């Protein structure tokens, strides 16, 4: 434990010194590798309430842009990542988007941690005709498909469908919801309510909690006292679901409990502790990298990303960093195929993405599908013995 802390501090010091030397190199200016860099923009919520999403996203982008440069760059040119922190504020995000387009002259953009910030930035990139790969969950980002906007994370709707499918198989039709009132929880709750009919599921209790609340026993107590509830789903992200899970155990509720992909990180298990035992959730293959079958198509890329990220940062991988990995990879591959940094050519190649195997899933885009994730992107996982394991399929 002690060594990880020390290593983290050393890494941080190293990061600062590389940043400093990068500036010095830039000032030196007349080196051999003096080709004009390819500028890729990113606006992420590195601080603020969505920081634990934006932070791994920012780290992932930095790690992989560094790697590209170490391997000789892209199209023979170095890649420069221009990264801004919007703090989760849509108005700031919009200003930074204008800055990336008007001032930094980026040729493409990866980022937009939240649905709100993404929606605020979309018009800027649409107008400037610059490809924009968002890392946010909201379905309205790609429905309807806009020419220059793409995204990598699964939508809330697919997460709901995956959960409801599992519930149906296990014979649960009367359920309770307890959702966070943040953008993530609220949006997923609304999407879930829309698809309940497809699975013959009815919602008997529909509770919510604030994003920074410290105790959810009042809400859970109501659910506990609602007759007929067979299972409970908690759409939410951040520390909220961890507290909900603990309170769930505190009240001794024994109903099957489902979380969302918003907690898909090892840190959820650490925070929720033994209360997390038996919790199910839909999540990408990334969380069970070492337990994937050898013939699983995603095994290689998922293991590679997990190793790279965890070595570089000393922190466990999360699905959010995975979204950023897929975002930058999709973009880099499109630029390579286009053999050009013309934003329109990159856009065309992004849309022509076929069978890209990423950590979130396998992507095949189409003019009317700017997400292009296949059904394998979500696996139903269960927490057993403090570990994620693929959930046993009920029959």
């Amino acid at each position, binding site marked *: 434990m002690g060594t990880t802390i020390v290593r983290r501090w050393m890494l941080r010091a190293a990061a600062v010194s590389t940043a400093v030397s990068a500036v010095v190199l830039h000032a030196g200016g007349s080196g051999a590798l003096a080709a004009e860099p390819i500028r890729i923009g990113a606006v992420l919520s590195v601080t603020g309430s969505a920081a634990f999403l934006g932070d791994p996203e920012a780290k992932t982008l930095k790690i992989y842009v560094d790697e590209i440069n170490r391997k000789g760059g892209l199209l023979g040119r170095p890649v420069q990542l221009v990264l801004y922190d919007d703090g989760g504020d849509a108005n700031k995000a919009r200003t930074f988007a204008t800055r990336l387009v008007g001032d930094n002259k980026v040729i493409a953009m990866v980022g937009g941690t939240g649905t709100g910030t993404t929606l605020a930035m979309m018009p800027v990139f649409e107008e400037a005709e610059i490809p924009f790969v968002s890392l946010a969950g909201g379905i309205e980002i790609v429905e309807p498909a806009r020419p220059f906007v793409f995204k990598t994370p699964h939508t809330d709707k697919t997460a709901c469908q995956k959960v409801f499918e599992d519930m149906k198989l296990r014979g649960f039709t009367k359920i309770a919801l307890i959702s966070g009132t943040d953008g993530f929880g609220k949006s997923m709750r609304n999407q879930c309510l829309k698809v309940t009919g497809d699975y013959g599921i009815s919602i008997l209790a529909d509770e919510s909690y*604030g994003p920074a609340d410290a105790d959810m026993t009042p809400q859970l107590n109501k659910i506990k006292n609602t007759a007929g509830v067979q299972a409970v789903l908690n759409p939410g992200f951040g520390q909220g679901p961890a507290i909900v899970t603990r309170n769930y155990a505190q009240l001794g509720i024994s109903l099957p409990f489902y979380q969302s992909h918003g907690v898909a990180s090892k840190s959820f298990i650490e925070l929720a502790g033994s209360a997390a035992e038996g919790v199910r959730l839909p999540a990408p293959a990334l969380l069970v990298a070492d337990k994937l079958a050898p013939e699983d198509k995603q095994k290689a890329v998922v293991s590679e990303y997990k190793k790279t990220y965890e070595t570089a940062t000393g922190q466990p991988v999360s699905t959010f960093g995975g979204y950023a990995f897929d975002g930058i990879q999709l973009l880099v591959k499109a630029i390579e195929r286009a053999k050009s940094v013309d934003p329109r050519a990159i856009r065309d190649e992004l849309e022509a993405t076929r069978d890209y195997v990423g950590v979130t899933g396998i992507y095949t885009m189409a003019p009317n599908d700017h997400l292009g994730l296949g059904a394998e992107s979500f696996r139903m996982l269960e927490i057993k013995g403090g570990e994620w394991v693929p959930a046993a399929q009920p029959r």
Partner: protein
Amino acid sequence: MAEFLQLVFSGLTVGVVYALVAMGFTLVYNASDVINFAQGDFVMIGGMGTVFLASAGIALPLAALIAVLAAVVVGLLLHRLAIEPARRATPVTLIMITIGASIFIKGVALIAFDKQFHSLPAFSGSDPIAVAGATILPQSLWVASGALALFAGLSLFLKKTLLGKALLATAANRLAARLVGINVAAILALAFGVSAAIGAVAGILVTPITLTRYDVGTLFALKGFAAAMVGGMGHPFGAIAGGLAIGLLEAFGAGYVSSTYKDAVAFLAILLVLFVMPRGLFGGRSVERV
């Protein structure tokens, strides 16, 4: 009945934390008329400091002690470097200084620690204790008894020690205190130090329940400030009563009215209290202090 009791447990657990933060506000306000919006960040320093020291291999009690001392140092520095040089400034300017300090502390914390949520192990396990059909976590009892001990210790300190009496005298009348030879600057520093310690201890007690991150201080400051105001700014009993009242209001709001609007329920109740008693529950009708 069981449901009512469950809501009471929930409200008291949260309310005690608000009460501790409110006590910090009260102490500093009494000594210096300053509303210290960085009060919530002491809670964060206590929690995050302990988490990181413990994960570096230091035994938990020692880690907690060091974290509290660190918070005290930050509190003293805040007083010496930011509040003392601006003594003549207006109350709003002083509030802005503490808000600047709060942003600064968070900014340093996100570099020195990280941006993830962290927890501490509960002091005596997490098996819930059943009471008449409701349940409470052992950690909640730790928080409650910790708060009681702090409160008792503080009132003993204020009433029985010379230093404490000097602090009370300074709070009552700064000029008179100076005239009788009290080193007012040192007393103000003491108030900042003690309030930082209270905040940090609160942070260590509640982190096993509420979790912590570099920016949790904002919410604690908000709720603690509200608690201090509804109780009557400057009254230690008011701080406790205000904190518990807000915690209970939130729990009953979530349980009986609407979980979405529980914060609104709490604030509407605060507004009602202030309309009836414009100086808070314990504020009485005394002349304005500022």
